[in-house]
């Protein structure tokens, strides 16, 4: 094994992890002429990274300029669908705005992280950053005052020093937790994601989902038919020649299910509304990921003496049921941290106060605004789990069957029966009024 060259004092910043947050930070700092070292534990940037499948790329596009034309995206998302699944029924809302099919496509694409993250790390390299792979950071190095001054790696003599360490190690944030920079999240604040990537003919995917050559679809599923009695949901995203089929649901719920996550995934694929979309093909990858979903209250202190935390490691993931965002927030946090670190390095001070520009910027950005605005959602969803994921998909299907029923009763009778079904499911008029109050934030 090659020894680590003597990098001491060569770098202004070390980035732990060449995922989207890490590469965004590295690119931003390199663009501001900082000397940056990125340390990636995988065989290549992206090799250890897993997500559902849709990326919101606006900041990436702005950071990479014309080079974004060469970004390895799969399909732009031209259609979204949200479905409620009971065990046998589906009720869906589908949207296909014309604007999504025009320039920039609302900056929404399906991507493969193996391709995309490697490309994004190359952008940082082209801007001047150094990226080393197959190297695992095992610990942080501190000076006698406790200031973080570098990292330990698994290379021989693998300790490397720099004024700032950017921790972009992902959701399984072993280094940050071991260094007491953040607490380990509770298991009802972390979701497990499992995903099967299946390969089909390109034509098969296009015909099945009604797509052209470049457009794609993002289908989201909620309810018992997706992942049982759990806060979470399922998804299907169309890539060029593959489908990403998966689930994400809270760990505390997953351990209550008799079925293991791989079985829940197989059951989801067998749902009558899902099976026709995913039949055939062959599995080309099986992956899993822990997703920090604790919301704003789970975000740790972001600036420390000599270090900042970005991306999933900082719990910057939004799940409010409809918006499922993480990779864009990872990029944004990396970008904002990169700017703040550059400022601090320039000023010659990298203690927590000097790095405060990062949390301040994040506070002013959509990232923390959204997390704070939806901080109630997690507790709400867990409190209303049975109604939202079990009762609601069921009663919706019952009511729509009644509403459209073909028999010899007048429509008025069907409509009135459908209405009473819904009212009864909500616990009568009093229950409905209580629900309306409880759900006011969701309805807003």
């Amino acid at each position, binding site marked *: *094994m090659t020894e680590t060259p003597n990098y001491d004092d060569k770098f202004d910043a070390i980035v732990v992890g060449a995922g989207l947050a890490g590469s965004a930070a590295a690119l931003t700092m390199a663009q501001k002429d900082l000397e940056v070292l990125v340390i990636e*534990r*995988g*065989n290549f940037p*992206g*090799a*250890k*990274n*897993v*997500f559902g499948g849709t990326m919101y790329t606006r900041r990436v596009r702005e950071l990479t300029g014309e080079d974004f034309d060469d970004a390895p995206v799969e399909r732009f998302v031209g259609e979204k669908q949200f479905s409620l699944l009971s065990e046998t029924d589906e009720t869906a809302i589908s949207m296909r705005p014309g604007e999504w099919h025009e320039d920039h496509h609302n900056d929404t694409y399906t991507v*493969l*992280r*193996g391709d995309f*993250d490697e490309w994004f790390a190359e952008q940082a390299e082209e801007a001047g950053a150094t990226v080393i*792979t*197959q*190297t*695992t950071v*095992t610990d942080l190095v501190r000076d006698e005052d406790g200031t973080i001054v570098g990292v330990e790696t*698994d*290379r021989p003599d693998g300790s490397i020093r720099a004024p700032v360490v950017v921790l972009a190690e992902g*959701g*399984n944030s*072993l280094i940050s937790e071991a260094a007491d920079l953040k607490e*380990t*999240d*509770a*298991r009802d604040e*972390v979701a*497990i*994601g*499992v995903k*099967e*990537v299946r390969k089909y003919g390109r034509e098969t995917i296009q015909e099945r989902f009604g797509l052209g050559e470049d457009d794609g679809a993002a289908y989201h599923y909620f309810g018992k038919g997706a992942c049982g009695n759990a806060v979470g949901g399922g998804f299907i995203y169309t890539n060029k020649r593959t489908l*990403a089929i998966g689930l994400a649901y809270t*760990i505390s719920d*997953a*351990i209550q*299910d008799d079925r*293991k*996550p*791989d079985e829940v*995934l*197989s059951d989801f*694929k*067998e749902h*009558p509304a899902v*099976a*026709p979309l*995913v*039949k055939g093909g*062959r*599995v*080309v*990858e*099986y*992956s*899993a*990921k*822990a997703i920090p979903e604790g919301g704003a209250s789970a975000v740790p202190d972001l600036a420390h003496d000599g270090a900042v935390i970005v991306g999933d490691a900082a719990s910057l993931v939004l799940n409010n049921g409809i918006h499922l965002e993480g990779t864009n927030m990872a990029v944004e946090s990396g970008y904002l941290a990169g700017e703040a670190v550059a400022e601090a390095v320039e000023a010659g001070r990298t203690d927590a106060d000097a790095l405060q520009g990062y949390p301040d910027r994040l506070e002013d950005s959509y990232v923390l605004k959204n997390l704070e605005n939806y901080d109630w959602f997690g507790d709400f969803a867990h409190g209303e789990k049975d109604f939202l994921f079990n009762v609601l998909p069921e009663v919706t299907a019952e009511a729509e069957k009644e509403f459209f029923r073909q028999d010899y009763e007048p429509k008025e009778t069907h409509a009135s029966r459908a209405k009473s079904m819904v009212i009864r499911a909500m616990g009568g008029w009093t229950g409905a009024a209580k629900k309306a109050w409880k759900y006011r934030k969701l309805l807003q």
Partner: protein
Amino acid sequence: MSAQPKTPEIERPSIEDRLYANKYTDHEDSHLGVFEDDVCLDCEVYDCVSVCPANVWRNEGDEGDVPLIAYENCLECGSCRWACPYDNVIWENPPNGSGMTFRFG
């Protein structure tokens, strides 16, 4: 009228079939473990086993055993760390690029 349309048959791959599609590089020492055997011996819930999507954690032995750890199946999600109610899971990143390599992600 035509017959009732049937839900198509769906492949239910085993863990092994699913993992077979993945690229994996072995590392000699397990990156997973438990801090205290006694904690597992007293454990009655085996939440590590319930949550694991790749059958890494197994309680195939007698009740009250320390789970077997098939670390070479590990997808590196880390869910077992949070699932264990006793914080008894040792979890380290596999060294020097070993472990799973996701090409699609």
